[in-house]
């Protein structure tokens, strides 16, 4: 394991290659494939809203497991740790740098929100996703595990801006943050339980990195994945009724 780490560091091979546009591979028939194909990554300096650094953590008290084992298991079973009703479709190769994942999220009113991610980085101790245009946020989310003197911690850290004014409004009103908190606390709880942690306790920390909004990005709303997924729902129903694949 240590050798693999060295190899990653020496070659820098943990990173994906730059891509101009995202391409979704084969996905199951039940997946809604919208808002990813042909999109660009939204990027770390793009996005409309305030920039937040959100950190969610869970400790692995009472179990003997290494950070490499946790990250390896996390990558292998990643979608299984998400709260019920939410899916990430990744290629058979799994979470590898350069792979595009298709996300179908449960949203209010029975809506399925379709968006995606690019795996930009992965090594033995962490992996990171970036989001396409139209996603709820622009930025990067890093999943990692690390050992401290008193035990092992798994962490999800997001450095994000709401992608457009509508998403920013949801964050300002609180329900955007709340939905995310519930989602990621649930994910960490499922992860810890998978490794045998009894009654895992999760924590969260918010840091407002940049209180300003980037007005020049307001047009991102045109690609809002929530709006586009909502508009697609009647089409999906017609397809379902007439059995069209």
């Amino acid at each position: 394991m240590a050798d693999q780490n060295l190899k990653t560091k020496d070659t820098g091979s943990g990173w994906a290659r730059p891509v101009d546009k995202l391409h979704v591979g084969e996905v199951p028939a039940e997946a809604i494939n919208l808002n990813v194909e042909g999109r660009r990554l939204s990027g770390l300096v793009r996005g409309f809203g305030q920039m937040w650094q959100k950190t969610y953590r869970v400790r692995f008290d009472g179990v003997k497991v290494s950070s490499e084992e946790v990250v390896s298991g996390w990558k292998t079973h990643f979608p299984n740790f998400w709260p019920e009703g939410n899916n990430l479709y990744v290629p058979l190769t799994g979470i590898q740098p350069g792979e595009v994942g298709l996300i179908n999220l449960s949203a209010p009113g029975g809506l399925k929100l379709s968006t995606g991610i690019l795996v930009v980085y992965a090594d033995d101790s962490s992996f990171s996703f970036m989001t396409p245009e139209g996603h709820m946020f622009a930025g990067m989310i890093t999943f990692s595990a690390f050992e401290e003197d008193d035990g092992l911690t798994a962490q999800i850290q997001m450095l994000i801006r709401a992608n457009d004014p509508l998403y920013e409004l949801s964050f300002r009103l609180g329900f955007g943050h709340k939905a995310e908190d519930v989602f990621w606390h649930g994910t960490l709880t499922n992860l810890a339980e998978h490794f045998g942690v009894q009654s895992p306790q999760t924590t969260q920390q918010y840091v407002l990195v940049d209180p300003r909004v980037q007005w020049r990005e307001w047009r991102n709303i045109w690609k809002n994945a929530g709006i586009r997924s909502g508009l697609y729902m009647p089409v999906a129903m017609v397809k379902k009724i007439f059995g069209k694949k």
Partner: protein
Amino acid sequence: MPTVNLTANVRKNGHISIIDIEGEVTGFAEKILMDAYTEASNGTTNSIILNFSQLEYLNSSGIGLLVTMLIRTQRVKQALLACGLSEHYVEIFRLTRLDEAIGIFETEEQALAAAR
């Protein structure tokens, strides 16, 4: 606690500060990097150049630290530039679209000329 293999030394050149990055930029290097920024940023600094010619390794958490530093420079209207990046890491800046906000130059001389 994971070991931090990074030094970040600050040099001054008029209103420009140069931070020499040597070693590994990961999430655990936050204090070293931000302390260097604070030292580099005092006084009348209007541009900061990150010299990456001795960079050994940069992971995604390290990229996150650079974004945080970028925001700090923007808030006080400083320019942030980078030089000495290997071709591989220039690609990482492209991938993450950091190159749209941080000027990238091959050499320190070129970055200094751009900052003046």
